[in-house]
Structure formats: C-alpha cells, structure tokens
C-alpha cells in the first residue's frame, strides 16, 4: 500500500540541505563561501567580494544551517498569476489566493542604500528566492513582489513547479515586499524556504538571508485508501411540517392569543379547561429560541422575517397574526484559529488538550491532532419545534465531531401541561370542588394544610382527597417541565450562549521550549539517511555495519557507540 502525504495548509518543516532541486546547482565545496551546514568556507575572493559592509542585513549567521550557499543562476519560466493581483503590499501583506492555494510566507526588506545596487561596477540586485528542493512534491509556488509603491499590486514573478525560483528584481524603491503562495496540486511533501538574495550575476554567487514570517510546515503520512473523506456540515433537512398542519410562529405579543384560548373571564376559563372547547390541545409548544439574529434556513436565507399569518388552533382562528418560521435552522457561530504554540510535538496530544464549550450541551473534548493548526468552527442545526440541536464541530470546515443537545427553553404552556391540569381539574370538579382560576387553584392548594384538605373533603364526600392530590401532582409536573428537557437547558440559557474553546497547553522547561537540547541529544527523527550527509549529534536506531579492516569487536563497539549517539 503506497504512502502519500496529506497536506495541512500550514507549510512544512524540513529541507534536504544539500540538494536544492533541479534549477539550482550547488557550487562545489572549493567554490563555496560563507557558512554551509555550520561550516564556514571563508570569504569570497577579493575579485568578487565587494563592499559587504554595506549589507549588514545579509551578514551570515554563525551556526545557521539553512542559509543558501552560493548558487548559480538558472532561469525558469515566467508565469503570471492574475488571481493574485489587486493585493496591495504592506508590512504584513495579505493576498487572496485560489481555492487550492496557501499563503506560505511573507516579508518586507529595507534596501540600505541606492548605491548598494552596484558593487565593483557590476550590476547587483535583490531577488526573493523560494527554494523548494528535492523531495518537494505535488506543489507549485508563486512569489509576489513589490516596492514601496503601495498603489500598485504585488507583481508575480517567475514560477516553476517543484523547484527553486527567483526573479530578477531591480528596485527603484527603498523597500521590497514579497508574498509566497503555494498551490496544492495533489499529494506530496513540501520543503520550501524563502530567502532574500543579493545577486551578483557576473560573479555567479548570491548572498542570502532567510526571510521572516514563514511558518514551519508539516505533513501527515496517510496510507492510501485510508485517506479520510471528511464530511462538511450537511444541509438542513428539507421537510415541510406544514403539510401535516404544524405551524411555527415567531415572537410578538401573544396577549390576544392567550385571551383567545383561555377566554377573558373565569367562567370561560373553566369551561375551556373541563369542557369541550380545548384549543390548547392544538398548542405544541411555546419555546424561547436564543439565536434569532444569526439563524439561517436551508439555502442560506435568514430564519427570521417570514410572512405573517393568522394563528389557527385546529380550525379555530385566534384572530392573532404572527410571522411564520421554519422548523429547522442553522446557527453558525464562526470559527477560531487553533494555533501551534511550540512547533513541536507539544502542540499535539497528549501534551495539548482541546475542549469546546458548547452552549446547552457542555464541554466536549475534541481530538487535538485533528484541530491543531486549523480553524475550529461550531455550527448548530436546530429544531425549533422540539429543541433538538446537532452541534457540528469543524476543523477547516470538515466536520470532525457531532454532539447532541437541546437549545430551547419551554415556556410552561404546552399540551402536556394543559392535559395534566385538565385531568386534575376534571377529577376535582367531579368531586364537587370549584375554584376560580387555575392560578387561584394553585394558590389555594399550596397554602392548604392536610387538615384543611380533609375539611374540604369532608364537606363534599370521601373522594375529595384523591382529587386534590391529583391537582397537586399536576402542578408538581408543571414545575418539572418548566424548561424543555431538563434544568440543565435553563442553565445553558442563563450561562454562556456562545461556544468557547479551551486549549490546555503544556508549560515546558526552558530547555524543551528553546530546543536547546538538540546540540546534546538531537531532535527526534525517524529517517533513513547516509551518515556522510549528516553533521552534529546523531543517534542510530538500526544499521548494518561492515568496515574493511575493522574487527568484530571494533564493529560491535562502533555500533554500540552509534546507538548511544555520536557527533558527526
């Protein structure tokens, strides 16, 4: 089964330092100058040296291992990328890119002096260089450059797939800008690096300085066939409950509506409770929905703003009108970037833990490895009739987790409530007890002592106790569904109504945080390498050793030392 690599959008770490791809020829050691892999090869010959004191910004960095050595120039093709245009440069350039593109890095650079363009009479100029050495696969790159004229767009320069690219750039401004963008053309590794290069073509060498603002990249190996086909947030259900007579109305004052169903006097209220006129049975619920401002319907329209319609209970017109609304809506809370803090394994599980607080649901833990370096979003799909909600947690718009809950607060005016009350009232009434209103009943019952109840009952017969008890039960039940589902929902409504991401990050020791350990014990690796290509601390995991002239004891000692770690 072949292995390929799934790209995460954040660019990749790592480069094969001695192989710069097809379009750059590394000058032999005898012609190298400056520092390469930590080795200083000396200064350029005087004949091409020039006045480097005028270019402190290009001073070599002692100990740096990833500076470009001296490179021969080789032209690559020129391609313009019109979709990049229209973006004005600034200190932190932002470009709009195609769907399969990622902004890789950017930088700005102050040119020290116009006289620096010429050294020893040779034409000298600055170029941005994007190096994508051997091992980079399935990506192409573009560089956008511009001077200080911020009214002009960044200008795409040369481009080539899988290779180094650099464009001649003779500035007339005192400051350059560059933005690098890479396109994902498939699956592959990415090893790009951005540099500012002082180019002296007649001397065939460059001075280079690595650009700022190019985050480390990484990739994930995925076995072919196992590549997750991540779903996005689905469409809302396409169901019209109006077909079965269910109607949903939004907001407004329902005082007239209450009058319509309960009447305006005591007699009619009791009549509606115990008689045949029971319009409240047609009320499925009165709920509070907390996200009216950001709720949308299937297709993307706003959930609010439906056409006004008369409220019918069965075939009985209440004479009250209200805006209708859909049963299902989508609530997109937006997203937040989960950024890497350490650029090492500490950014992932088990060191870093990511939790999401979901309103009306609670805190849920999400897989750190799935969301790190991505944009974590939360979208609710709500059923405003039942209160059911599906909370979609997304990473770069891919759904990685779904949680269920309920996001409505039910106002105690439901069919169930009414049914319980009606049954209790009917029982009590059959025993000859009368009362003014349901509210008055509640008051009376709650203040009654057991003795009072018996006295009430004794006046009208033995059946009264059970009848009053039924009323109490009905009221107790009413309390229990004063919110929809359970009290936790009310807590959710009264608490945080927006999702919050909690990232538990480790606090490493200074040595771990600064990666200063690497000089003593190296960086963790799992690579097949030629030892001759390495320098610095190296610990071997497996080797088949054979050296002419070495005894078996010599070989055993060498292998033991390599597996303990040596300095190459």
């Amino acid at each position, binding site marked *: 089964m072949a292995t390929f690599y799934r790209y995460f959008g954040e660019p990749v770490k790592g480069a094969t330092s001695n192989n710069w791809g097809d379009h750059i020829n590394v000058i032999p050691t005898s012609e190298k100058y400056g520092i390469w892999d930590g080795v200083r090869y000396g200064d350029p010959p005087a004949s091409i040296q020039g006045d480097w004191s005028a270019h402190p910004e290009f001073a070599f960095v002692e100990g740096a291992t990833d500076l470009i050595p001296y490179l021969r120039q080789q032209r690559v093709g020129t391609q313009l990328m019109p979709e990049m245009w229209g973006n004005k440069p600034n200190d932190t350039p932002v470009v709009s890119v195609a769907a399969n593109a990622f902004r890789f890095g950017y930088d700005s650079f102050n040119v020290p002096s116009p006289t620096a363009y010429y050294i020893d009479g040779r034409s000298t100029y600055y170029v941005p260089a994007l190096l994508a050495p051997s091992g980079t696969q399935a990506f192409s790159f573009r560089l956008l450059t511009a001077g200080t004229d911020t009214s002009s767009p960044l200008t795409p320069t040369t481009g080539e797939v899988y290779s180094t690219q650099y464009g001649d750039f003779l500035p007339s401004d005192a400051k350059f800008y560059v933005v690098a963008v890479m396109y994902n053309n498939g699956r592959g590794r990415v090893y790009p690096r951005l540099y500012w290069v002082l180019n002296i073509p007649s001397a065939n060498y460059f001075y280079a300085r690595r650009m700022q603002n190019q985050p*480390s990249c990484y990739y994930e190996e995925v076995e072919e066939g196992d590549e997750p086909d991540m779903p996005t947030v689905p469409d809302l259900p396409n169901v019209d409950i109006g077909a079965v007579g269910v109607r949903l109305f939004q907001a407004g004052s329902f005082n007239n509506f209450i009058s319509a169903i309960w009447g305006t006097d005591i007699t009619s209220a009791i009549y509606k409770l115990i008689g045949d006129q029971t319009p409240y049975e047609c009320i499925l619920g009165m709920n509070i929905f907390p996200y009216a401002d950001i709720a949308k319907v299937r297709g993307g329209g706003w959930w609010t703003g439906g056409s006004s319609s008369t409220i019918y209970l069965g075939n009985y017109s209440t004479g009250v009108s209200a805006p209708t609304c859909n049963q299902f809506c989508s609530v997109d809370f937006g997203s937040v970037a989960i950024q890497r803090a350490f650029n090492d394994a500490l950014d992932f599980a088990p060191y870093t833990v990511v939790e999401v607080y979901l309103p009306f649901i609670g805190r849920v833990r999400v897989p750190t490895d799935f969301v790190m370096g991505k944009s974590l979003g939360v979208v609710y799909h709500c059923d405003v009739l039942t209160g059911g909600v599906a909370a979609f947690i997304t990473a770069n718009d891919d759904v990685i987790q779904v949680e269920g809950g309920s996001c409505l607060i039910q106002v105690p005016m439901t069919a169930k409530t009414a049914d319980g009350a009606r049954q209790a009232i009917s029982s009590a009434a059959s025993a000859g007890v009368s009362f003014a209103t349901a509210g008055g009943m509640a008051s009376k019952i709650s203040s009654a002592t057991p003795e009072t109840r018996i006295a009430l009952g004794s006046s009208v017969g033995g059946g009264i106790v059970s009848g009053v008890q039924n009323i109490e039960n009905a009221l107790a039940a009413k309390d229990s569904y004063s919110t929809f589902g359970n009290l936790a929902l009310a807590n959710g409504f009264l608490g945080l109504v*927006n999702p919050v991401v909690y990232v538990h990050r480790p*606090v490493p020791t200074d040595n771990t945080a600064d990666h200063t350990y690497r000089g003593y014990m190296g960086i*963790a690796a799992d690579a097949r390498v030629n030892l001759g290509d390495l320098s610095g601390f190296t610990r071997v995991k497996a080797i088949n050793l054979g050296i*002419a002239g070495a005894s078996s004891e010599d070989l055993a000692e060498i292998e033991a030392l390599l597996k*303990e770690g040596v300095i190459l």
Partner: protein
Amino acid sequence: MTITLGKTSAPPKQVSKTMTDTRTFTGAFREGDAPSDRDPVIVVNVPMTTALTYNYAEIFGAYYFIKDRKAVTQTSTEITFHKDVLNTFGAGIRTHTCIIDRQYSDNVGDYDIDDGAFVVKRSELEILPVNSSSHTVTFVLGTIGIS
C-alpha cells in the same frame, strides 16, 4: 615501533578528532604481553612528565585514547591505550546508510515526533471565544391548525 602522541579536545563521541601538538616517540610492548590492537600497553620512551601532557595517539595507522600512564624509568612510561574506533574508522562509518532516531539538524529531525524526551512542568489554559456576540432571543409558538 613508532608512536605518535598528541592532544585532542574533541569529545570522545565525536567521530572526527583533530590531534594537535603531535610528537613521535619509540616504544615497545611489554615483555611477555600478548599485544592487543584494541587495548595495547606500550612502554614508550617518553618521560612521565611529558607523557602526562598527551591524551591521544596514533599507532599502527589507528587512533587511540590514552587510558593510563605508569612511569617505568626516568625516560620511559608504560601507557595503556584504547582504540578510538570512531576516528579510526570514521570514513567507513560515513559510507553507511542507516535509520536514525535522533539528529541535530532540524532538516532531518522532526520536532513533531514525540519520543518521550520533552519535559513539561504543568499546563496552562488558553481561552478562545468562538463568538463573542450577544444574540437576539425570540419566542416560537408551535401549533396544529389549518393554514
């Protein structure tokens, strides 16, 4: 035999070592010894005081650490050596391809690999609101009725 004594400040585990202040002396194995090329013991015609200034040697075309020194006469010292296999066979070692699990360069090593070497002290909490807006509440009435 000829022994070249010298000094090195390279760590023992460094494959390539530079030997400085080299000086050549004569010497011989001790009588009755079975000479060893890995841990030879050689009486070198060098005063003890001079021998103490050296810590590295080249003998038989191989490199050796000086493990111990014992004065034999005023002008000779018995020196115990141990072969530095890394420096001696450094060229051969570098021709090998192998699997490595730690490396200095971040071009080869991968900080995202966790082999248990990271040291952390505790954790701290970062709170990231997904949305900080207040929202509009509305009532929803559900009914059954004719349209």
